[in-house]
């Protein structure tokens, strides 16, 4: 008997009807479209469409090392994904534009007893464009069912730094790996086709995530994808020296760039990814990463 595949499991969840929504409940299908364009030597947020629960700050230009880069905070008052939620985010960076997109706080995926929560993210970078997409961590509460699907498309000469941190529960209250299922996938492509694909596939009740080779005795998993003309060795050295996280860098398939993985405590993993971001930025656009404005 074949074990249920993640895809089949989420189809089964999808068939579970939601209880009737309370009056005034909105935001099950949140949508956000942001588009950046290079205009007169700077980058402007030229399209900004958001439905509840999302809100986008206007372009902030506080990045002193990279004055033509536009920084945008994706805000969600709830900061959460609940059962039945389908969130759909799209970020487009136009030719020669440079943008940094992040979130104001962590995304909490709540416990669920029906259906599941899904977040789709589409990132597109046009020729010679540059995108940093570095959201705060995703926290998987007990009984959460989470499906994430991210696609990154890079045109000729484009580059991108995309990060993901998965926290397996409210660790401060000793909740770890009590969620039901998490399946996230990132697919990157260029005009010639698929560059690489990475999957996070966790179903703790069926398979112990703390096995040797999977998470070992670590809790938090962070990955930074550096797509473009990047070298693995300097990134590896930076993340090994940066924190106590168990971290390393390797060249991605199809000469796509470099992947950095880090496992450990939340602060150590975030520190390793921040160091890798700084190093990646120096390689790709010749500027250091700024101090974070939200900590």
């Amino acid at each position, binding site marked *: 008997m074949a074990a249920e*595949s*993640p895809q089949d499991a989420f189809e089964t969840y999808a068939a579970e009807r939601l209880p009737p929504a309370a009056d005034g409940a909105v935001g099950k299908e949140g949508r956000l479209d942001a588009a950046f364009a290079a205009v007169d030597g700077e980058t402007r947020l030229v399209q900004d469409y958001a439905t509840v629960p999302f809100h986008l700050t206007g372009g902030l230009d506080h990045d002193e090392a990279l004055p033509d880069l536009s920084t945008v905070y994706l805000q969600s008052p709830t900061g959460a994904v609940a059962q039945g939620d389908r969130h759909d985010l799209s970020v487009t960076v136009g030719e020669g534009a440079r943008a940094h997109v992040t979130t104001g706080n962590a995304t909490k995926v709540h416990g669920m007893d029906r259906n599941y929560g899904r977040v789709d993210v589409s990132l597109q970078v046009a020729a010679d464009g540059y995108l940093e997409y570095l959201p705060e961590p995703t926290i998987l509460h007990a009984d959460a069912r989470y499906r994430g699907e991210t696609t990154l498309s890079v045109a000729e000469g484009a580059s991108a730094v995309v990060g993901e941190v998965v926290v397996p529960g409210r660790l401060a209250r000793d909740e770890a790996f009590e969620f039901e299922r998490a399946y996230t996938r990132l697919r990157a492509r260029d005009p010639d086709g698929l560059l690489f694909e990475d999957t996070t*596939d966790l179903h703790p009740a069926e398979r112990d995530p703390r096995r040797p*080779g*999977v998470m070992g005795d670590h809790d938090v998993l962070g990955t930074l994808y550096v797509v473009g003309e990047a070298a693995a060795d300097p990134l590896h050295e930076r993340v090994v020296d940066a924190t106590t996280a168990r971290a*390393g860098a390797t060249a991605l398939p199809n000469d796509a760039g470099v992947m950095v*993985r880090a496992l450990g405590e939340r602060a150590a993993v975030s520190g390793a990814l921040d160091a890798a971001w700084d190093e990646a930025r120096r390689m790709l656009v010749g500027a250091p990463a700024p101090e974070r404005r939200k900590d």
Partner: protein
Amino acid sequence: MTDELPVDESPVAALQFADSFLPAGSFTTSYGVEQFVAADEVEDAADLQALVETYLDRQIGPCDMVVVAAAHAAASDGDHDEVRRIDRRCSAVQLPAEFRESSTRTGGQLLSLVADTEADQFLAAYDEAVGAGDAPGNYAAVLGAVAARTGMTARQAALVQGYSFVTDLVGAAQRVLRIGHTDVQRIVTESRPAIVAAWEANVDRTVEELSPFAPLIDVLSAEHERAERRLFLS
């Protein structure tokens, strides 16, 4: 004579392609176990057994065996384009660089070998495509194609892949870890149900749903890439 069914040689072919006697260079592959030993994360036979099971469950089953079966189906249909597409997908999901290097090096060696020995146009054309850079020549894709052209079933081919993986890994471990022949054979024996389970669990998975997931192996492989002393390519 014409009424007789062809003799089924496929079980013998399965033995041939599962044998460490096969000159595919898999002795250069440790699947990162050299680094697990160097980092004291694998210290004895029990640790090794657990690591083998993680690999079968999270890497060989949901990725390599699915590629073997898909390449087997495409090669059975004589579909060159599809075999090359599956082969490229295999590279796209193998994120540690030295795993890709091992996989294409051993796959390329096996393919050029069978291009000489099998008198099979399909395999010869696949070998040319890899030589021309049209396909990477990953071991799992090559094995699936070879298996199809030598009459093996997809299941047989996937089990050959699983068995070869186990013997490569424990063979490498034997050279870097103090572990006896009996312990090694015990691990191989205890891996038999895990190899079959890895196939059964992924038999319906398509090549669009490859999902290897072993982040700590990824990190140790990155460390191994830069290790000063190493016996193995991966």
